[in-house]
């Protein structure tokens, strides 16, 4: 049985009607006068969309900012890989979009597990993001008349997605990065690349700094400040194979969790349906093919089990267009979670294609016959090119083979409406927090949330914290600072001291197998319980048998990886516990026990309409559950149907 805290969590949602909540909150927030801002220091960890935009905006206001990233430059953060676009309720196409409609789509898309007030604010500031990015020189796609172009994305009936070819994330990140570099040039931001946050420093219960390790020489440092802003992304790499960059990790968030920050809804994971399948056991990552392909591609498998013929040799009558069969209303455009589960179901039943039989076809034959190859090339040329390069198959000639892969994590550190965690002074932005996407994120909404948090929320709410807590500084010699430093140093020595025989990568892969098989797309109570046991056992293996080469005083990527895997091995157990306790299916969380007769997700609003914030109780000990009840006053709870 899960231990549940008596008091519920207070999201500190402002009073008033939904459309006035953010204004009301802004009028309540305390301000720091311009002259005083320079007396405050803020630490920003991570330089993706959320981190870069936050660091730049806070520095522009006059705060002294220290920004940290583990990559060699802030421009490398994984936001850069987002392809499709960014949503905004501009209603430029005059097709009936509005702030309310974007809000509604996002709440519904999240399967009613997000906090309404946060989503409404996200929708309210979405237009300003586009204005800001255009002013920075982001080269969005344009119409011939010079106006901004829009396209349609999944889960919406309007065109509200702004884009820069297939590289929207790159262009938005470079916009935020350029704003950040401007502040670096002006001296208001001190940039620390190739630095990893390895612990949070708390003094008298308030977040006052971080411990970092310089990845080029292994040196530890402590940095103290008046607030810490965590923008460290998601934890998809707990599955080893995901669409995340290799360096993405849970370490910073997990260390904050171990210092008292609640981790919310870790089991909400988005499995993206259209990724290039695994080709061999050397595979190091998975590559996404944009959701937009499903506009023109038709998904199918052979009707006969184990049919190993080439796609071209399988006649029309022997093909099963299973999405069109199961969901006639939405067909190939069902949401990501639904499409992913349907692909897995076919492959598990023995109808998968390709050498591994863990794939389905995404076929453009009909679209090419209808529109001509030139039209398809103009729409998706870069994606077809990438697919060809990776698989050595030409998707103009043969259907793509696709399979679902871990893509985005909706869970994250628990934050209130001000994006402050339950640890005062620790703010969490972007994918690293849990608040806006509920149990499933819609396409083109991750970029929106990262920039909304960084440009338009944190500049207001951090000031309130500063104004309430004063200018007093913490010395690097403070006993709590020293204690965090020594603990972090001890962890590295401990890893190096194991001197076993198993490589870090082999253990990480094994963890990924456990997660994918038992905590992946469909979960059962039995599987989750055995996953938790497997994870505990693998953690033992790590601490007894891991072999890390080199020293702690040099550039050592093997050691970096080991530290991250050690944290994944602790985090993974919480992930399984959360998935086990949530006795319902919603969005990206699918429990086999909780499905309708026709295999659709069955939510339990009676018992599970809450965000689950977990409190750390020591490694291997049962965490304590804190519930934040979710109220749906604006968008009434209903069952999603795509039939």
């Amino acid at each position, binding site marked *: 049985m899960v231990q549940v805290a008596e008091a519920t969590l207070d999201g500190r949602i402002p009073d008033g009607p939904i459309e006035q909540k953010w204004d009301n909150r802004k009028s309540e927030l305390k301000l720091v006068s311009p002259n005083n801002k320079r007396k405050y220091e803020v630490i920003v960890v991570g330089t993706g969309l959320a981190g870069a935009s936050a660091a730049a905006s806070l520095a522009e206001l006059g705060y002294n900012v220290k920004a940290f990233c583990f990559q060699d430059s802030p421009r*490398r953060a994984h936001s850069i890989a987002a392809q499709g676009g960014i949503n905004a309720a501009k209603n430029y196409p005059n097709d009936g979009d509005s702030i309310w409609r974007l809000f509604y789509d996002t709440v519904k898309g999240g399967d009613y597990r997000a906090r309404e007030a946060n989503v409404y604010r996200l929708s309210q500031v979405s237009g*300003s993001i*586009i204005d*800001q990015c255009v002013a920075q020189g982001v080269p969005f796609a344009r119409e011939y*008349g010079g106006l901004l172009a829009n396209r349609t994305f999944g889960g919406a009936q309007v065109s509200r997605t702004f884009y820069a070819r297939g590289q929207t994330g790159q262009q938005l990140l470079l916009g935020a990065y350029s704003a950040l570099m401007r502040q670096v040039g002006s001296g208001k931001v001190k940039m620390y690349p190739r630095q990893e946050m390895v612990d949070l420093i708390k003094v008298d219960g308030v977040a006052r700094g971080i411990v970092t390790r310089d990845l080029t020489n292994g040196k530890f440092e402590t940095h103290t400040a008046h607030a810490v802003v965590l923008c460290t992304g998601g934890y998809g790499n707990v599955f080893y194979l995901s669409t995340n960059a290799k360096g993405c990790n849970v370490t910073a968030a997990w260390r904050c969790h171990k210092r008292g920050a609640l981790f919310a809804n870790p089991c909400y994971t988005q499995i993206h349906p259209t990724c290039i399948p695994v080709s061999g056991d050397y595979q190091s990552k998975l590559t996404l093919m944009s959701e937009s392909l499903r506009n023109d591609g038709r998904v199918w498998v052979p009707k006969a089990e184990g049919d190993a013929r080439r796609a071209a040799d399988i006649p029309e009558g022997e093909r099963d267009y299973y999405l069109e069969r199961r969901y006639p209303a939405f067909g190939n455009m069902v949401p990501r979670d639904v499409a992913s589960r349907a692909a897995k179901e076919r492959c598990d039943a023995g109808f998968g294609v390709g050498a591994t039989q863990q794939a389905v076809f995404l076929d453009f034959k009909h679209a090419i016959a209808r529109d001509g190859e030139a039209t398809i090339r103009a729409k998706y040329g870069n994606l077809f090119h990438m697919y060809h390069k990776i698989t050595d198959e030409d998707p103009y000639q043969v259907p793509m083979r696709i399979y679902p892969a871990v893509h985005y994590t909706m869970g994250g550190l628990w934050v209130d409406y001000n994006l402050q965690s339950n640890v005062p002074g620790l703010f969490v932005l972007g994918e690293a927090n849990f608040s806006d996407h509920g149990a499933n994120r819609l396409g083109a909404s991750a970029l929106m949330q990262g920039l909304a948090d960084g440009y338009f929320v944190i500049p207001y709410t951090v000031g309130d914290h500063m104004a309430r807590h004063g200018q007093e500084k913490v010395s690097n010699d403070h006993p709590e600072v020293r204690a965090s430093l020594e603990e972090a140093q001890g962890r590295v020595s401990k890893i190096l001291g194991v001197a076993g025989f198993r490589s870090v990568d082999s253990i990480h892969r094994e963890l990924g197998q456990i997660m994918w098989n038992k905590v992946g797309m469909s979960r059962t109570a039995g599987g989750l319980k055995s996953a938790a046991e497997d994870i505990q056992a693998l953690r033992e293996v790590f601490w007894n048998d891991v072999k890390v080469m080199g020293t702690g005083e040099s550039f050592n990527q093997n050691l970096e990886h080991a530290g991250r895997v050690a944290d994944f091995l602790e985090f993974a157990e919480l992930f399984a516990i959360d998935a086990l306790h949530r006795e319902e299916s919603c969005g990206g969380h699918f429990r086999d026990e909780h499905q309708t007769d026709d295999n659709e997700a069955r939510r339990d609003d009676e018992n599970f309409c809450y965000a689950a914030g977990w409190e750390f109780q020591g490694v291997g000990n049962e965490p304590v559950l804190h519930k934040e009840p979710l109220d749906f006053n604006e968008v009434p709870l209903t069952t999603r149907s795509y039939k």
Partner: protein
Amino acid sequence: MSGQGMELKLQIWRQANAEDKGRFHIYHLSDVSPHMSFLEMLDVLNEQLITLGEEPVAFDHDCREGICGMCSLMINGQAHGPDKETTTCQLHMRRFSDGDTIVIEPWRAKAFPVIRDLVVDRGSFDRIMSKGGFVSVNTGNPADANTILVPKQDADRAMDAAACIGCGACVAACKNASALLFVSAKVSQLSLLPQGKPEKAQRVLNMVAQMDEEGFGSCTNTSECEAACPAGISVSNIARLNRDYMCAMLCSEEGM
């Protein structure tokens, strides 16, 4: 794939740190699948080195989908290897043959000092950006995004330039180790757009000055940079930069 893989001889640059002189080491790798990416091939090598009790080869990488710009490597003397408009992480072993020798080196340029093995410090690019690779606009309430019309062809050309991933292949490929393709991509992007025009003169002067200070060489119009660029950045951006630079020197307050 077992048994059908390639045998490769890898000649890899090993250097313990910035002070170390560095040298080539030879490694033999067998059973390499043609479907592996180049970096996955190095992953396999590193797993074997760890088993043997040797330190793995350090190399930069992150997204492994060709967009973050973190991966590098001179492969048989070519930046990012033999494929056109392809980063090392998107290069696949089917491009090589059984029995091949592959020489793998770091980017070599004075402004990119080696940190370890194949990893170099590209902080000089960030410092150039901090001198002018931006529009001076604070977060706040700028005008509605559609207030200023931008002709589609200008937006498209700006996007062509903005596609730069900042990997440094242009510098590594250039016999002078010039960073002009990198700098010109940002200068072009912003001077093609109305939002970038007010700071056009100052930007090009400041960025070029910082480029020189970092120790990058001068451009002699060899165009090796364009041939090596994985993002397809054209040398016409350099022409545009030169034009902006001349204008700034001759006609602007900043250039006087």
